[in-house]
């Protein structure tokens, strides 16, 4: 690589790194507890335990659980029902009205039921009441800095900058390291050189993982625009034939239980995990939207939306997800690291810590940069070692 190329890549590495380091540090630090969100959630949960019942006990009536919610909150609406596939839990989400929900999604609250007995285990406050809990705080800082869509898009842009910093860092690795054995950390040299070697070692060893997390993170930040695109194209086209009809209201709604059964019969081997009521901004005005998924490690990440006519209860369509939403679904496990049990989570956390060290050491190298003339930074120049020159250029 010519000295000119090294200088160019060094400038790219320096500025992209400086631009994204602070935000990436926030993302990495908040991501650490999020790796263990299920375990932390269980630990913080003080709800009554589920009833001890045989594992094959059938699910209680969803209609009954929705009716319990409506009885408890007269005049309110059910917005969706979530059926957990991991524990016997059903969540019934409610809101004062669709208008209130659309104006402020945090007006929602939820009731947690034992899925087999339909016993109410928890009645939440509206999400707008009180501050966020620990995991919500971490998640919001990780995904949108409490700024909604603009925050998501900003962090997505920072993710792109991080990917550019990674690529330029990898390009600069060879000029740095070609005269050193792989993995050298010169412990007997200056502190700055030691951190430089550590930065190079951790950076190159974790590069593929960091690149994967960076790219999948960017894709995840595009969740809202991608779903909006799908709703405004495929879903809108599909709803064309209902145009002009009056949407069903509470009294017109068919049974959610029947909708669940219809979808399970139409998609054998798949699990139905949620039902969105008609009128929701995440659904259609005329249908229950049921989300079904497979049961293997891969297919359990791929969701299929099924539309059931909310008035008649007839299955309307199993929709095909567009490629960009399939890509988004595939990117999620690769970002969350939640598909290989606790050992994978521990590996994820360790690589996250390695990334924090790479970011921190990069910042340290920049803060401790020396005053070295550009001429002496060229590879092969005697005034500065080959291993040090490009790194100094990058850090400055």
């Amino acid at each position, binding site marked *: 690589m010519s000295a000119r190329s090294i200088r160019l890549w060094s400038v790219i590495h320096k500025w992209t790194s400086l631009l994204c380091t602070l935000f990436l540090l926030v993302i990495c630090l908040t991501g650490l507890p999020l790796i263990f969100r299920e375990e932390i959630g269980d630990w913080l949960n003080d709800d009554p335990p589920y009833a001890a019942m045989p594992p094959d006990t059938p699910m209680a009536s969803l209609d009954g659980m929705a009716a319990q919610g409506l009885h408890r909150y007269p005049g309110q609406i059910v917005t969706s029902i979530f059926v957990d596939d991991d524990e016997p839990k059903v969540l019934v989400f409610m809101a004062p009205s669709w208008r209130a929900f659309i104006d402020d999604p945090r007006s929602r609250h939820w009731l947690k039921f034992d899925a087999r007995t339909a016993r109410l285990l928890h009645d939440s406050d509206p999400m707008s009441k009180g501050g966020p809990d620990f995991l919500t705080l971490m998640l919001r800082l990780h995904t949108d800095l409490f700024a909604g869509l603009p925050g998501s898009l900003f962090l997505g842009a920072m993710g792109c900058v991080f990917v550019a910093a990674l690529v330029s860092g990898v390009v600069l690795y*060879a000029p740095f390291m070609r005269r050193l054995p792989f993995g050298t950390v010169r*412990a007997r040299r200056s502190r700055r050189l030691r951190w430089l070697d550590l930065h190079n070692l951790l950076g190159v*060893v974790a590069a593929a993982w960091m690149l994967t997390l960076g790219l999948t993170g960017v894709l995840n930040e595009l969740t809202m625009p991608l779903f909006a695109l799908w709703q405004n194209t495929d879903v809108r086209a599909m709803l064309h034939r209902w145009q002009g009809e009056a949407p069903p209201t509470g009294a017109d709604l068919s049974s959610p239980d029947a909708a669940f059964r219809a979808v399970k019969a139409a998609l054998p081997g798949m699990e139905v995990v949620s039902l969105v009521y008609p009128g929701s901004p995440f659904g259609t005005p005329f249908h229950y939207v049921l989300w079904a998924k497979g049961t293997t490690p891969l297919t359990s*990440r791929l969701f299929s939306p099924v539309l059931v006519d909310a008035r008649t209860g007839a299955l309307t369509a199993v929709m095909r997800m567009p490629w960009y939403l399939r890509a988004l679904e595939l990117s999620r496990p690769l970002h969350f690291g939640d598909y290989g049990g606790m050992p994978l989570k521990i590996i994820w956390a360790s690589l996250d810590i390695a990334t924090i060290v790479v970011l921190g050491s990069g910042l340290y190298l920049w803060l401790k940069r020396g005053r070295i003339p550009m001429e002496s930074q060229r590879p092969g120049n005697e005034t500065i070692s080959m291993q040090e020159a490009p790194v100094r250029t990058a850090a400055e």
Partner: protein
Amino acid sequence: MTPPAIGRPAVWRWPIAIAMLTVFGLFAALLGQGGVWLWLSWAALAFPLAVILACLSRSGKAGRQGR
């Protein structure tokens, strides 16, 4: 000045091997059906961590011997 071509591939030997193992590990648990694929995924993704620890341990020993 362009450095000699000899030695260039050697610089990339370990990083490329680690990157390939990482990609294999990332997809083994996702595309495999549990069981042995899960173990292979854990082993492949733990390898970069083992390399970091080995290099740091080697450096620590060299540092102590130099004092």
